[in-house]
């Protein structure tokens, strides 16, 4: 497990989603979603499968278009930032790498796309502990390795905002602990961290704020302690199931 984590101090940028709606073939998948993820805090984005979490995260990054409303980072759409990977780094899908490309090759593409120095590739590989398999094709990597590469992709630009969709999937216990430390270090360094997860116990340990979404609507958006009203283990899960049901 890599001992290092990104801790260089940089001002964070808020992620703002305002009245975001998206309709796909007549089906409303986002219904006036509004929330803000603040610098220096870890915001957990929770909801059952199909609730609209991934669509929202993709809309923030401009990968999916909104039907109405807006999503902005630092007050403007993500696409309007001149060096995007310095503004926001994202892990949206661990499989979004060509199977024939190595970790080094993949990160070289990302670095080149934003004019990052070559040294950033090696630094990102070291950060996530992939140095030993940096030349192995992605198609031969385990899910855990793929998640780490996804994290390296998100962090290579030392971004002000980190957006992670289900980053715990496929990670072993040691890697989850490492990820917890990385997320905390990022937030403590002033970054905005927005992370979706199904692991309530993990969220309870790291999150400062929680946004809960179901069927495309925000059910709650508040600081974690304010939302659950308790520090007791399992309180978030109980509250979550109360709000979304146990279906």
């Amino acid at each position, binding site marked *: 497990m890599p001992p290092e984590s990104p801790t260089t101090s940089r001002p964070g940028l808020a992620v703002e989603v305002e009245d975001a709606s998206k309709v796909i073939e007549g089906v409303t998948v986002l219904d006036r979603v509004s929330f803000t993820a603040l610098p220096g805090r870890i915001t957990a984005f929770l909801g059952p499968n199909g609730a609209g979490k991934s669509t929202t995260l*993709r809309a923030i990054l401009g*990968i999916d278009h909104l039907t109405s409303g807006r999503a902005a980072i630092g007050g403007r759409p993500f696409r309007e930032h001149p060096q995007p990977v310095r503004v926001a780094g994202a892990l949206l899908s661990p499989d*979004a*790498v060509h199977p024939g490309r190595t970790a080094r090759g*993949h990160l070289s*593409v990302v670095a080149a*796309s*934003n*004019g990052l120095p070559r040294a950033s590739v090696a630094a990102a590989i070291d950060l996530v502990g992939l140095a030993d398999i940096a030349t192995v094709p992605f198609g031969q990597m385990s899910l855990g390795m793929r998640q780490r590469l996804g994290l390296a992709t998100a962090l290579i630009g030392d971004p002000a905002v980190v957006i992670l969709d289900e980053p715990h999937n496929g990670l072993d216990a040691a890697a989850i602990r490492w990820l917890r430390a990385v997320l905390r270090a990022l937030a403590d360094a002033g970054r905005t961290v927005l992370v979706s997860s199904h692991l309530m116990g993990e969220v309870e340990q790291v999150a400062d704020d929680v946004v809960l979404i179901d069927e495309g609507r925000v059910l709650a958006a508040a600081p974690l302690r304010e939302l659950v009203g308790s520090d007791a283990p399992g309180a978030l899960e109980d509250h979550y199931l109360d709000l979304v049901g146990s279906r």
Partner: protein
Amino acid sequence: MRSAWTAELVKVLTVRGFRAGAVLAGLALPLTSLLVVSSGGLGDADTLTSGAATGSMSSLVAYAAWAAVVAGSEYTQRTIVVSLATVPRRPVLYGAKVAAAATIAAAGAAAGAVVSLLVVAAVTPSGHRLGDPPALLGVVLASGAAAVVGAAIGVLTRSSTGSIAVVIAALLLPRAAAGLLGGLQPWIVGASPGTVVTQFVQGAQLAADHAYPGGAALAAVTMLLVALAVATLGGLAFARRDG
């Protein structure tokens, strides 16, 4: 834009299959020309230059299919998510993608044309004139245009295999269906990439109903404009759709 273009080049360089495809497309010209010339396909009136361009159609199809596969793989492999998350300005990403395909195809075609000329010169009995080697520029232009169309179709179809069928049809249909085009035949067939190459290297020998009425240069301009139009269609679709 330059960074995005560089990244698209790196995408090709970092996948063995993409690299091999580009090299094979470049080799298609000299290999096909060698096959034709060594089997006695060079007529008395043909020059070494026209012999070197004999296999140009195979190279054009190969580059178009290659570009379509590379562009389409962004969707089949879902790498478009990372591409858009790192270059979120869609016109920049798309423009870089198309420009990189054209760059690699044009550079590969230029190298392939030189190799083809050397190979044909080496295996052809003496007596044939050299012709006009700079006319092989037509191969370079047509390969670039074919790659632009291929990349655009790859983005439009979002499929590697599906896009291959479309680009092959787009390149071969004008000649195959020439008889059905009536008075439009010289305008359409004459501006198709394969015929543009032929007009550059052996214009005088081309049948009148295949020769573009405005000459080789205007045929090339028309071909490039058609490629630009297809690229624009792809760009519009790319801008409107979700990633």
